[in-house]
Every structure is written in structure tokens, then in C-alpha cells.
């Protein structure tokens, strides 16, 4: 087994997903099968190979540090579930 149900519970917690028991059962089997399949990458000995982080070799992309108009506060808040005093409001605790 590539991943146990207990590990799936742990991963769901890390990912901030309150999965139901039914979901945990279903995903545990599916994730196990997927991890079996993708684990194939370990068959290759790539000890001397550099990783590809990005398909284009760009580095240090600079821009002028010039002020630009920014999003008005009311636009930025327009889609928020709850707002208070020009700020996003979240539950306490």
C-alpha cells in the first residue's frame, strides 16, 4: 500500500478539507492506486540530473518601481462573504 487511511486523514487535515467518512474511504483507495502509478518515477536513477523548475530559463525579471492605480477598496471587498470596516471579516477563534 502506498498510502494508509490514517495518512489520508492526516493529509486532509493539512489540506484543510473536512472530508466525510464516506469520502475518506473512497479517496483512500483511489489515492493509493494513483500513488502506485505515479511512484513509477522512482524507477529512474536521476542522481546527477538537475530539476526543471520552470520551462523557460528566466531569472530576475525586473520592473520599474512606479506607482500604479490599484483596485478600489469597495471593488476588492465586493465579493467577500462578510465585511466589516473596509476589511474581510472571519469567525473568531
Amino acid at each position: 500500500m502506498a498510502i494508509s487511511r490514517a495518512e489520508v486523514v492526516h493529509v486532509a487535515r493539512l489540506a484543510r478539507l473536512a472530508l466525510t467518512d464516506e469520502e475518506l474511504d473512497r479517496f483512500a483507495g483511489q489515492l493509493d492506486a494513483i500513488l502506485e502509478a505515479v511512484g513509477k518515477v522512482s524507477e529512474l536513477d536521476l542522481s546527477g540530473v538537475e530539476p526543471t523548475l520552470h520551462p523557460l530559463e528566466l531569472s530576475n525579471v525586473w520592473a520599474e518601481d512606479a506607482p500604479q492605480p490599484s483596485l478600489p477598496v469597495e471593488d476588492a471587498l465586493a465579493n467577500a462573504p462578510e465585511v466589516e470596516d473596509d476589511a474581510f471579516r472571519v469567525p473568531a477563534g
Partner: protein
Amino acid sequence: MIDTLRLTAEEAQRLIERGEVSGAELHRAYLDATAERDPELHAYLCTVEETEGGGVPIALKDVISTRGVETTAASKILAGYKPPFDATVAARCKQAGLPLIGKTNLDEFAMGSSTENSAYGPTRNPWDPSRVPGGSSGGSTAAVAAGMAPWALGSDTGGSIKQPAALCGVVGLRPTYGTVSRYGIVAFASSLDQVGPIAKNVRDCALLHRIVAGRDANDTTTVELPEPIEIPEAVDLKGLRVGVPKELNEAEGIEPGVSDAVNRTIELCRELGAEVGECSLPRSVEFGLPCYYLIAPSEASSNLARYDGVRYGLRVEDGDVRTMYERTRDAGFGDEPKRRIMLGTYALSAGYYEAYYGQAQKVRTVIRQEHAAAFEHFDVLVSPTSPTIAFELGARTANPLAMYAADLLTIPSNMAGLPGLSIPCGLSEGLPVGFQLIGRQFSENLLFRAGHALEQAIGFDVVPERLQ
């Protein structure tokens, strides 16, 4: 009477220039076609009645932010979200005067190969509504195939433009990574995501690509195009060296009818004057899919962390802030995003990072090197776009791995950051087969020329028989 099934974007532009039709009349014609056919096909998540701009109307995949127009990425977690700004590609379409017809359906967060993962219901294939249009840009490709849009934009991470273009019998370009801005695009896997054009023919694809491509100061991964996009006129392939990667053409799971159509097209390349030879991408094909399904979910698990019920979208109120996050995300995401978030979170977690994500990034280097070696001898590599024709709705939904295999042939070149064009090359069992042309980075003009010459010689009828 405008025949939206046959009218190309280029012809539409000419009608507008001659004053024979207005942008508003065209816009209305596509909305009427949509009202007629979309109740069956469900290519659109929403349509826009007001005509803004006098040019050729366009449909945009619903990962593209449109100011004031609901943008959900086909997820419940973004239900009702109206972006306060336009994505750069949407802004460029507006500047070019292209009225928006509507926002097209997709697999939730562009995760899928059939458009069945949409939280708002699947899109159906205009060639056969019992079958999928492919995905994730299945709404955009179905809209174009069914004459509900002359052209559209999609996005492609592992094959999400090329594969549905193939299954719907239209042309789709996945551009070179870094040529089209992702500013305002709902992010999935940032080292792979690209926006690209979908149209009825290669020239329309090139015209649309010319409108949206090029550096954007708001996306620092974009670069200046080394040469302007040309509208292709080539009628032959003289001097072109066409490589046929053995593994991409003989992979397990390629249907015989698909191989037949692709082999006929390869023969046509010879007849049009190309030099055709075999080449090999052994590890790219064998390890491409596992490599992709580590890198894309890992990046997705990070990108989708932003959906937390705080700034926009769904919130499930329940207890403290952490419980709110967890309940919101459980209620808002569908199964596929959950699977990929979990897979990515696991692959990036302490103790597994090097073995999974780190190793996959090294495999990606091997894939790039194999492609670079092939391009020492060839100008373009060809293969089927999809191993199969459009499959029945529901055929793969219970088995994620079977669904993932739909992208077997599009993933390797995507991992290498290379551009790929899919053109329809024939029918198998009455359904379209796509021909994939892969080029070096920034070789879009060459792909357009080769695709255009082939398209003329193939003479594929892009109008689905059942709609004629």
C-alpha cells in the same frame, strides 16, 4: 441569414469590413445559435446579451476573469464570483473589439479530460451528444464545433486545449509556455498552464493568437515573441523535416481507427514534400504521465489554498475560523480537485518531497532533453492528439487513472514547455480524429504553416454531420 456553423472568423471579419453585417448582428446570430443548440450541449455556463465591440464575437473559457461577468472555473466554491478586473487576454480581446458571447464550461478548475467534472453538469459532444467533448476546455471546443462561437480561448495544462479540439473536430493551439499572459486566469499548475486559441481552421487560430499573445507586465513569466505571428498561406511542406516519435504513435491504448487516420496524414506530409523519419522519445512517454500527475497536483494544492471562504466565493459558517475553512473547502470543491489537492499535499509533505515532487522535476529535465535531441533532426514531431475518439459520458468517471490516460500523448511536450497544434485529420467511427504537431519553443509560425498546408490537403468538413 448567417450560417454560424460554417462561417470562419476571418470571413466574419471580412463581412464586417464590407459593412454587410455588424458586430452586433453577428453577436446576436451566435446567441441565437446558442439558444437553439446549447440546451442539449451545455457548452456555456453563461451568455452575455449586451454587445460590447464591433468585431468578431468570442467565447472565453470560464477560467478567464471577466470584469463583472460571473467567473466560476466550473466550481461551486466560486459560485457568484464576479471578478473586479479583466484577465489580460480578456482585455486584449476587448481592445480588439471582440464582443463576448459567453463563458464556456470546463472540468472544475480545468482538472479533467471530459468536461464531466464541471460542478454545473457536463458538456456534450456536438458530433454525438452521448459522448464527451474532451476536456478540460470542452465547452470552448463544443461551442466552436456547433457554430455557437466562431472562435474561443481555452487553457491547457496537460492537454486541455489539444485533446478536446481533437475530440470535437476543431483546431486548437497550446502555445509555447510564456507566450500568453496568465494574469487573471484561475491558476491550476503554474509551471504548465497556458492560454490558447480554438477555432474552425488554422488561419483563425493564428489570427486569435496574434491578438492575445505577447509579453504582459502583469505576468512576469511572459516574454516578448521572437517574431510576429504570421497568418499562414503555405500549401506544401517542402523542406520540412517531420519526425514520427515511435512511442507517441505506437503507445498502448491508441485505437486502430485513430492510427489509420494519423498514418494517412503522415503519408500526406510526404506527398506535400516533407521529409518524414522516425524518432524516439522513450522515457518521455513512459514517464510523462506519472511525472505530470505529481507536478500538476502539487502545484494545484498550493494554488487552490486561496479558496478559503474569506475574500470571495462560498463560505460555510461553522464554529471557529479553521472549521470554517475546512467545511467551506469540503462543500465547495468537487471530487477531482479534492483528489488532486490531497495528492499534491501528500507529494509535497515532509518526508516525501524529494521522492515525489523533486524526482518528478528531474524526470521533467529528461523529457526536455529527449525532445531537444529529437529537434536536432526534425522541425516538427507528429502523433495522434488523443489515443481515442470521443468516449461515452460516464465511461471513465469511476476510474481516475483511466481518465488521466486520455492525456498520454499531449503531456510529454507540455512538460517540455513546447507548443502543440491539434488539427482534425479524419473520422473514425464517424467521430473526429486529431493530429498533433509539436514544435520547438516559439515555433508557432511554423506549426501554423504546416497545419494550414495539411488542413488544405485533408479537406476535413468541420460541421458535424448531425447538424448539417
